[in-house]
């Protein structure tokens, strides 16, 4: 779950990292007033979750309050990768002597946190790592044993930094390591971390991702930052259809029937589970089919969950048929899912034999499930038909129908 820059900075400030004066503004007048209050040159930065603001022209520098107001108007309508800002950060523009990069993230290979440090900050770190590997250090540290500042010192030193910068950077980097662990972050990044001309250090831009699973453990912080429980902070905000999908899944705790993502096609998908859904979505597209949605069922969902998900998908405008497909199931039951999707069709006022293009869920309780499907005249197949071919049958029916 991604934080906006202003939220990341609020957390950094709370933990004593050095930051310049700044204000979040939502109107041109406010931008003018706050620029005057800060004094001198300021920078205006669009508050969006995705990167690439600079390239999109959503970061601008202003020497006067009037210029700041004008820039506000210019930045507000700019979409950065499809996302429009709700607010803009006005911040003091400081003369920079040297830029550093520091980030803490998870290293899935060593299964430990890793602190990445470079004295070539301000630019794409992956590029620096390729062109100047000696200027990028990667230092793993323990998430189990106590950590001390020497780890930060080693990380900084390994990127060829010494002298007073080494000593001044060490507590900043060490604090970032602690913040990372304490708040269950998956990324805590400062880029650039600058030494200003007056010799002081400042966090100029920062970026934090918190593990979605850990939200419950950090309610106080999220409340303090003003992040609501319903904010998903995915790459794009959820559509109303997706919000309904989340509600279907939240009704009871038995299994999963959710993770609904909306697409603009015409073939509804009731598919599962985690890996099976990815496989089936690819298969539908490979056959030239146009999915109306992505979703996942699994973990033995209740009949009513499968029913309500089916109803939701059939309610989407333009969806004429659904394909019900999974990999060979172990704990999810074929008969319970069959009952759910058939009841969903009936409650949506549809004939299951027409609305269900194909039912391909082999595995646990399949004999019982197939009896139900026979009774309602639904086209089904067992494991002898591959996931790929089952998807092909569904797509062929859609194409024959149109």
């Amino acid at each position, binding site marked *: 779950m991604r934080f906006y820059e202003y939220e990341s900075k609020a957390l950094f400030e709370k933990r004593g990292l050095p930051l310049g004066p700044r204000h979040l503004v939502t109107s041109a007048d406010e931008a003018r007033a706050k620029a005057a209050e800060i004094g001198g040159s300021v920078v205006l930065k669009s508050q969006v979750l*995705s990167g690439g603001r600079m390239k999109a022209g959503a970061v601008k520098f202003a020497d006067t309050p009037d210029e700041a107001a004008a820039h506000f108007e210019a930045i507000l309508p700019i979409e950065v990768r499809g996302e429009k800002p709700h607010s803009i950060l006005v911040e003091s523009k400081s003369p920079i002597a040297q830029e550093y990069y520091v980030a803490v993230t*998870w290293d*899935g*290979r060593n*299964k*430990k*946190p890793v602190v990445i440090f470079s004295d070539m900050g301000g630019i794409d770190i*992956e590029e620096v790592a390729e062109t100047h590997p000696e200027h990028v250090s990667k230092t793993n540290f*323990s*998430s*189990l*044993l106590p950590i001390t500042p020497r780890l930060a010192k080693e990380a900084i030193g390994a990127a060829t930094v010494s002298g007073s910068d080494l000593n001044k950077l060490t507590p900043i980097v060490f604090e970032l390591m602690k913040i990372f*662990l304490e708040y*269950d972050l*998956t990324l805590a990044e400062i880029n650039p971390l600058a030494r200003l001309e007056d010799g002081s250090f400042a966090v100029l831009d920062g970026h934090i991702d918190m*593990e979605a*699973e*850990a939200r419950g*453990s950090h309610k106080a912080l999220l409340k303090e930052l003003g992040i609501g429980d319903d904010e998903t902070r*995915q*790459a*794009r905000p959820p559509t109303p259809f997706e919000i309904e999908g989340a509600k279907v899944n939240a009704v009871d705790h038995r299994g999963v029937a959710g*993770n609904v*993502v909306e697409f603009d096609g015409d073939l509804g998908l009731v598919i*599962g*589970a*985690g*890996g*099976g*859904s*990815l*496989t089936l*979505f*690819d*298969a539908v*597209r*490979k056959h030239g089919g146009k999915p109306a949605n*992505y979703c*996942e069922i*699994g973990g*033995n969902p209740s009949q009513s969950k499968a029913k309500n998900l089916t109803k939701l998908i059939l309610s989407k405008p333009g969806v004429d048929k659904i394909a019900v497909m*999974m*990999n*060979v*199931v*172990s*704990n999810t039951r074929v008969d319970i899912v069959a009952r759910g999707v058939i009841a969903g069709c009936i409650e949506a006022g549809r004939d299951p034999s027409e609305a269900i293009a194909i039912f391909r869920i*082999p*595995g*646990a309780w399949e004999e019982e499930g197939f009896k139900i499907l026979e009774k309602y005249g639904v086209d089904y197949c067992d*494991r*002898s038909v*591959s*996931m*790929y*071919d089952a998807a092909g049958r569904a797509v062929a029916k859609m194409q024959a129908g149109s």
Partner: protein
Amino acid sequence: MSILIDKDTSFIIQGITGREAVNLTRENLDYGARIIGGVTPGRAGRDIYGVKVYDCVRDVVKHEGQPYGSIVSVPPRFTKDAVFEALENDIKLIVIVTENIPRREVAQMVELANLRGARIIGPNCLGMISPGEAKMGGVGGPAANTRQAYTKGNIGVMSRSGGMTTEIASTLTAAGLGQSTCVSIGGDAIVGTTYAELMPFFEDDPATEAIAIYSEPGGRMEAELAEWIAKNNSRLPVVAFMAGRFMDEMQGMRFGHAGTIVEGKEDTTADKIQRMEAAGISVAERIEEIPELIKQRLAEKK
């Protein structure tokens, strides 16, 4: 032969009285597993399909002897404690079924396991099976379904998806290719044991002649496997199925498992396929191509 588990492997189930764990217990017993005890705090004295329940792992060890393994099926907020408990009671193989555990806690469990010389499979996995020998976890479901999908043979299977472990095994079985051991390694960003970490076990197992894997976007596990194979001059042909190709165009969106997200180039299926092919791994576009590719690779070897 097989890896990690066989018919003599003894284990316990932590959280044995939970809804899914009760199922798991019956399914594993029916498949011939040696379950020597179960743990749910406060439920000592109960009996789950003949398996005695204790309040803590220490009590199981005291009354039933030292188990080799444990399946941990407890709610996320209790999982770390349960795994630490198993590790400190000298359990050497832990299957974590539980989903939605924050990475920090998984990393801590893995670090302690390393310090104690133990191995973790999962979290967010269905465990593993050595067909005809034993299974440890929900993989394959009820014993009858498990026997239908899994047969004893010479192919090792590793999968980030529990469900796809069975789909692949079922497809291999239908093509006359049995399996040595199939491991559902878990769908999280950090897991106890990766493909590359399982490879040395398969490499040393005389029964295993080839490997099939299920892979997907996100993480570095496929890159790590490719490096391992190139570096160790593996004797085993590997065939990979790559799912989630559509995600390459959808940066920052999470689909499927917690570990499945495209954030950088290395997360994409295109990059992973390229690395795997460069290391000599055959990449299938459909599951049903796996048996044929394995047969081809085995024929080339001879």
